[in-house]
């Protein structure tokens, strides 16, 4: 397992280098003069020249890439053109907000999706199976913005059970240390705050988690049905293993392997910033941060955002691969 992990980590190096080159090239792929594009046609030559100098566009390409990499390796993502602030600093709370939301959305998706899929497969062709799969079918085709708005209308406006927007209560903001509000409130022992944070998370988590939940439920069901036909399940039955353990021990561990792929992919998609959901719930996440940057052509921010999302995908891929090998010994020993 250790050797496998090391091997996978080494394999990441060329991927990360390739990624950095791609992201680095973005600014050079802008047609025409990047400085002009950024500042507009009416900018004076002095201002344009200063911008080129700031962006390092006057240096040879290789020097530019070297500088970019040196900064990157020190955790320096450059400066936002719009706010003139360090992007590495600026992006942190957005990133934390997105990670927190994604975590809860996927927690909901996995717990509900996997169990619904298991029970649907176990009780194949029962009313539970039909209803669960009908809900899953509606779930995958549900427009997220509509679901979000409906949630807000019912649970926030009509019933007034849950807050409809934001990460925390405006009247009682969180004293943030790590940017992760859950961690912040727990380490400060602020349990009223924690309750507030969790309440704010519920509606956007469900809105965001519904599609992954539906996909996971369908995937789990079909994978379980396939595995339940396997010879080793018959062997376990012939040993006298009870149905519950047949399903949750013998079948699930095998059936989970393809489900894991879906979980990884969906997590990556959510972490990439769910602009729509973040907009509806006024959630200050990466999606919103990037969206704002794109609308004012803040190229360094866009670059950093893309790099961040790509890195997240790579990391999730790595985690999924490691989990595969933890579940399936045949991968581990290859």
């Amino acid at each position, binding site marked *: 397992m250790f050797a496998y992990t090391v091997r996978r980590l080494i394999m990441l190096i060329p991927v990360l280098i390739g990624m950095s080159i791609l992201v680095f090239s973005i600014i050079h792929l802008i047609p025409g003069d990047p400085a002009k594009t950024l500042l507009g046609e009416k900018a004076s030559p002095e201002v344009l020249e200063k911008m080129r100098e700031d962006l390092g566009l006057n240096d040879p390409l290789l020097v530019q890439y070297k500088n970019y990499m040196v900064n990157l390796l020190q955790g320096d993502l450059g400066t936002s053109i719009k706010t003139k602030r360090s992007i590495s600093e600026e992006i942190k709370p957005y990133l934390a907000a997105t990670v927190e939301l994604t975590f809860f959305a996927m927690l909901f998706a996995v717990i509900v999706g996997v169990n619904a899929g298991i029970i649907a497969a176990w009780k194949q062709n029962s009313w539970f199976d039909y209803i669960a799969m009908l809900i899953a079918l509606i779930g995958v085709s549900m427009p997220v913005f509509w679901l979000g708005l409906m949630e807000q209308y019912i649970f926030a406006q009509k019933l007034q059970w849950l807050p409809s927007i934001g990460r925390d209560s405006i009247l009682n903001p969180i004293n943030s240390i790590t940017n992760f509000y859950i961690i912040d409130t727990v380490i400060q022992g602020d349990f009223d705050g924690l309750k507030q944070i969790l309440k704010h998370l519920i509606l956007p988590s469900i809105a965001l988690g519904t599609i992954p939940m539906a996909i996971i439920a369908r995937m789990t069901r079909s994978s379980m049905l396939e595995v339940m036909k396997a010879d080793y399940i*018959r*062997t376990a039955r*012939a*040993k006298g293993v009870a149905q519950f353990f047949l399903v949750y021990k*013998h079948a699930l561990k095998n059936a989970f392997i393809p489900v894991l792929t879906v979980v990884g992919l969906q997590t990556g998609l959510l972490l990439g910033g769910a602009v729509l959901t973040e907009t509806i719930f006024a959630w200050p996440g990466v999606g919103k941060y990037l969206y704002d940057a794109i609308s004012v052509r803040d190229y360094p921010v866009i670059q950093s955002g893309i790099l961040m999302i790509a890195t997240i995908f790579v990391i999730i891929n790595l985690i999924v691969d490691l989990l595969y090998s933890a579940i399936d*010994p045949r991968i581990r020993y290859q």
Partner: protein
Amino acid sequence: MAENFVLEVKNLKTYFHSDNGLLPAVDDVSFQLKPGETLGIVGESGSGKSVTSLSIMGLIPKPPGEVRGSIIYKGQDIVQASEKKLREIRGNEIAMIFQEPMTSLNPVFTIGNQMIEAIRLHTSLSKKEAHHKGIEMLKLVGIPRAEEIMGEYPHQLSGGMRQRVMIAMAMSLNPSILIADEPTTALDVTIQAQILDLMRNLKKDYNTSILLITHDLGVVAEMCQRVVVMYGGKVVEEGDVRTIFKEPKHPYTIGLIKSTPKIKENLERLYSIPGNVPSLNNMPKGCTFAPRCEQATEICRNQVPPLFSITGEHKSRCWLNEKDALDNREGA
């Protein structure tokens, strides 16, 4: 009826519901298993051997399956038994090994995990005791490095080794019956002989009754005391192995024997029975074997023959044997 049996299958009928109606995979099968004997069930692929054994284990999926008749184990009809009762019997009193050693063990659990699970399901041994028991069983079936193998995964072992693990697992609870469904079919010849040897030795040590399912009469000759020949879901001939080989009565059995290779005759071209096993939704009206039988007459094609008693335990389901049976009855 002074004789006592470990297992008595009476008029077993196993059907599968399908779009083409009820398919009789096992059609009125009866046989008895005596204490300490190895009974062979032989027949071409598709003749209902596996369905018979799975019916005994209570492992026929319902639906689409449906099991009727009775299977008497220890004076109790287990066709009617509850799932809970069946779970107590499975693995513990009636154990089973399968044809496909490559896929019969769970790939994501260690050999040890699967052995310990089987042992602990039916005993109150601690994990550690079960672990020791597992090692002891692996050694007993001739697996080298038994301690290490406990921590290994199925894909690290060869087919022969996996079948040994299956046998060790099946025998670990000292069952009174071992059902072996083509245990050597998927293995190559030398390994096949080793596995059969192992089963013979274990049977001697444990006095287990074995129900050995195979399509290979060579295996029957080597292992069994009695044999039941199945065709198209029915028993077509039954008797002790010596009689069946010396005086086979049913044309199907005769064909099977002719098509079994013998070491001395291995240069000759082997005989093979013409035609194929009929499919379940297309069963002939009379004797199921009639379409492939060279001696079939009018009655064969129209009327299902009963199982005629020839001598003693020797029975045959063929109209040609009607006279033999009558002669015997008159002589007696």
